[in-house]
């Protein structure tokens, strides 16, 4: 199908992008890699008056360290995230999960920032950044603000970004010393996750000292499996982990769709959380 007509702007700096967005109001859409937006346009599910192509703003690209934090430019592509040595060393979970997103050609174009701003709870990366306790740096007409991941994902396809704001950076605390695993359950390689579990585990003396669990597609936003996280603290073996993970679906509100019922999703969340934690903790 054919996208509807729109005006097009291609700012070359963040400031210019923000001012273009501010002028346009609610009718503008930001185009980063376009891997979510273009299919929406082609199916005529979105009708922006203006598309703001931020793809040529160099400052939005790349990965750097800032003390104990890794700072990833919003425009960094999935392909580059997967291969970035800093990401691999300090946020391996992100690299691992990003490698499961879509397919190689889409990963060449799709960006970390675009995936997060799209705020699709079925996307893999929102739950990962949530599990990493990441923060979003957002530029707007009155300067920059930082939004924690837990506040960033507001509802289905809805982020905390105002229409005149642009996601510029993703900050994730380094997780050196944590082990991790992203357990994705999907029906075919290209399909969205029915459920995904992003697990980070810090072990101490043979026990799980701390666990962080992000859930993909278990509600209208990505979620943390808080009850399971609490129950996992101190777990010291397969049975203890299995018991703790029974709480993984608490507080979730998964949807009914073509690929699964809520009941099945809740079941999967429990099973996959156990598997993710065991794999992450080297206990599987």
């Amino acid at each position, binding site marked *: 199908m054919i996208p509807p007509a729109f005006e097009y702007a291609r700012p070359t700096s963040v400031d210019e992008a923000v001012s273009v967005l501010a002028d346009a109001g609610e009718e503008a859409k930001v185009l980063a890699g376009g891997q979510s937006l273009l299919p929406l346009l082609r199916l005529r599910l979105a009708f922006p008056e203006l598309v703001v192509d931020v793809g040529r703003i160099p400052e939005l690209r790349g990965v750097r360290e800032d003390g104990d934090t890794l700072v990833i430019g919003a425009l960094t592509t999935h392909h580059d995230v997967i291969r970035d040595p800093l990401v691999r060393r300090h946020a391996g979970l992100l690299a691992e999960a990003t490698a499961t997103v879509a397919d190689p050609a889409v990963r060449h174009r799709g960006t970390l920032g675009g995936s997060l701003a799209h705020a699709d709870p079925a996307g893999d990366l929102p739950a990962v950044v949530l599990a990493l306790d990441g923060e979003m740096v957002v530029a707007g007409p009155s300067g920059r603000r930082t939004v924690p991941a837990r506040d960033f994902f507001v509802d289905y396809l809805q982020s905390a970004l105002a229409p005149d704001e642009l996601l510029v950076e993703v900050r994730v605390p380094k997780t050196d010393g944590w082990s991790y695993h992203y357990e994705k359950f999907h029906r075919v*390689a290209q399909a*969205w996750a029915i459920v995904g579990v992003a697990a980070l585990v810090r072990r101490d003396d043979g026990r799980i000292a701390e666990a962080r669990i992000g859930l993909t597609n278990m509600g209208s936003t990505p979620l943390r499996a808080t009850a399971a996280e609490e129950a996992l603290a101190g777990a010291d073996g397969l049975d203890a982990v299995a018991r703790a993970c029974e709480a993984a679906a608490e507080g979730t509100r998964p949807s009914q769709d073509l690929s699964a019922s809520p009941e099945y999703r809740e079941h999967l969340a429990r099973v996959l959380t156990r598997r993710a934690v065991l794999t992450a903790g080297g206990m599987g």
Partner: protein
Amino acid sequence: MTDQAVEHEVGRSRLRKEDARLITGQTNWTDNIQVAGLLHLAILRSPMAHARITRIDVSPALERPGVVAAFSGADLAEGLGSLPCAWPVTEDIVLPDHPPVAVDEVRYAGDPVAVVVARDRYAAADALEAIEVDYDPLPPVLDLEAALAEGAPLVHADKGTNRCYTWPLATGGSFESVRQRAEVTVKRRYHQQRLIPNAMEPRAVVVTPLAASGEYTVYSATQIPHILRIMLAVVTGIPEQKLRVVAPDVGGGFGSKLQVYGEEALALAVARKLGRPVKWTESRSEGYLATHHGRGMIQDIEVAATREGKLLGLKVDLLADMGAYLMLVTPGIPLLGAFMYPAIYKMDAYEFNCTGVFTTRTPTDAYRGAGRPEATFAIERIMDELAAELGLDPVEVRRRNWIRHEEFPYTSIAGLTYDSGNYEAATEKALALFGYDDLRAEQRERTERGAPVRLGIGVSTYTEMCGLAPSRVLRDLRYAAGGWEAASIRMLPTGKVEVVTGTSPHGQGHETCWSQIAADVLGVPFDDVEVLHGDTQAAPQGMDTYGSRSLSVGGEAVHRAATKVVEKARKVAAHLLEASEQDLEFTNGVFSVKGSPEAHKSIQEIAFEAFTSHDLPDGVEPSINAETLVDPENFSYPHGTHLCAVEVDTETGRTRIRSYVCVDDVGRVVNPMIVEGQVHGGIAQGIAQALYEEAVYDAEGNLVSGTMADYLVPSAADLPDFVTGRTETPAASNSMGVKGVGEAGTIASTPAVVNAVVDALRPLGVHDVRMPCTPERVWRAVKEASA
């Protein structure tokens, strides 16, 4: 003596002639066609499954930039007849009117309601949004059983019923009487989900008119240029001789392009109205609504057997979803399966009933295998259930019932004469390649240990009827045309060869295989043969490509035409060599006189002699060209044994195929490489039905698996390697001994995979999992069995 091919071409894995253009992008897909002044057609489709159109106004579209014309159904009704159904299977079949654009009522989501013609495809797409349509919703009709109930809402109110037809078949003794004496009966209901064929090339059509003389060329992504030409003449009233239909490079079909589509008729009607060339290309998601679907049946099947597992009888009651209208062969699809339920098994009684039912969904029609995969699935599934009931190995229960190789030719209970086959040989070979006994041992071990990931083994010993079709049989089945195929051979003055075929390939490799056949018979080099097809001007006669018919009917025609050329050439050679015809030998393209090999003439030399006709015998016309039409005397019956091992994670319900082995007997093989490729692709599509694909409708009749993101076509990452093997019992019904291979893999693999899934779960109390066997369905089956 010229340097001639000596090695036999037939039987060699010749690399394909088709590939060069396809791997370099020098293709001629219909959508590639550009002509001066080309207009683009876009179609507004109903967003509702069933509604009355109370008002439609296309005029706002005319205000949009670049728009040349816009039409409602009423605007086009004159000069555009109902789309044809060529297979009215019973005398009293309900045949609803099927306008290419709906006039007052829409009957499925996607039913066309208006048409826009614009200067480019972007302008056309935009203008659709300006068209105003008011709908008065009518109740959707979705459930096949409810649709037949008294007082059900009707898809075609004027017909008074949703029942399209009921077609019965009863052979042998009465099923009821064998059931009375049976020691065991097993009855099951199986669901054949709707499938979307998904040929990779979306459909497209381009029409170029020559207004002055009323001539039209229709380029279409079709499997059936010849049938299409006839039908378009009927639908539009354009005289057949003024229509030329071309199937350029066509990117797959699988039955979905065995059709006379509304868009083809529409493009022609619009080109005639405007006197300008027009193009229509569907988008993938549009095609999901507009291109016919496959399968869509409810099967009630019952077998009666002895305690030893000997089949006594079989009864099948079928409800088949026609969709909203009858397309080209919609009603006949279940009938292609009707004769295949008894499969390779001997029994005393067979009863079959099929009722076609109208629903407010996209029409169904042929999809790879067309009726036969459904039949094979049901019989092969229930053979496993019978084995389980009797505590027998599934292979053993088949062995006790199948036709033994020494019993061929064998007339099946359904009345088909199976000419050849060897089920024992194929099965033994498959079991050995598979490592059946070792896998069974591992399965037992996992079961005993209560392993969370179970192993399942599925078998399918299928046969099929293909090589469609003997024309007299088609008459008896009330099909409106014959099943012959045409070929002609033109010997060019320079000694090169043109083969003209009535088959219309779209990926099968006919250019290569027909070259091999002709080269062998004529004794000319493979590269000297050019195959012409898919254009009613170049290849005026043909019945096209579907039903695994091309080789056994069309290839046979090439073989016979080439043989005729040799016989004609023999007369000329005898004259030139001053010998009698009986004294001539023909080897590797050269006639020579027995006993005096120095006296010889090559077939190329004779072609030139015929061209100059300076010295032809009296009464011989100046040509050694030949043409032939072949009407097959029987169907052909490929068969084989497919074995699948799956690992099923009982916790998540996920199925992983661990190994897949097949041994197919497709008779003599022209090109082993191409046969293997057909088998691979067929298996992949059958696995896709078993595990992944389904056209899902919601309660309002909307197609919710409406894009390729929702309808799960498996990728390379989702499928395993297949181990393929062959046995070879030549077909007796054609001179080459070939049987056909296009549909075999799809027919065989679906039951093999589902049997494996159920086999893995049977120790847990599971007896069936509905297709596609999604993780959730498997998980639920395990949960419900243990509850």
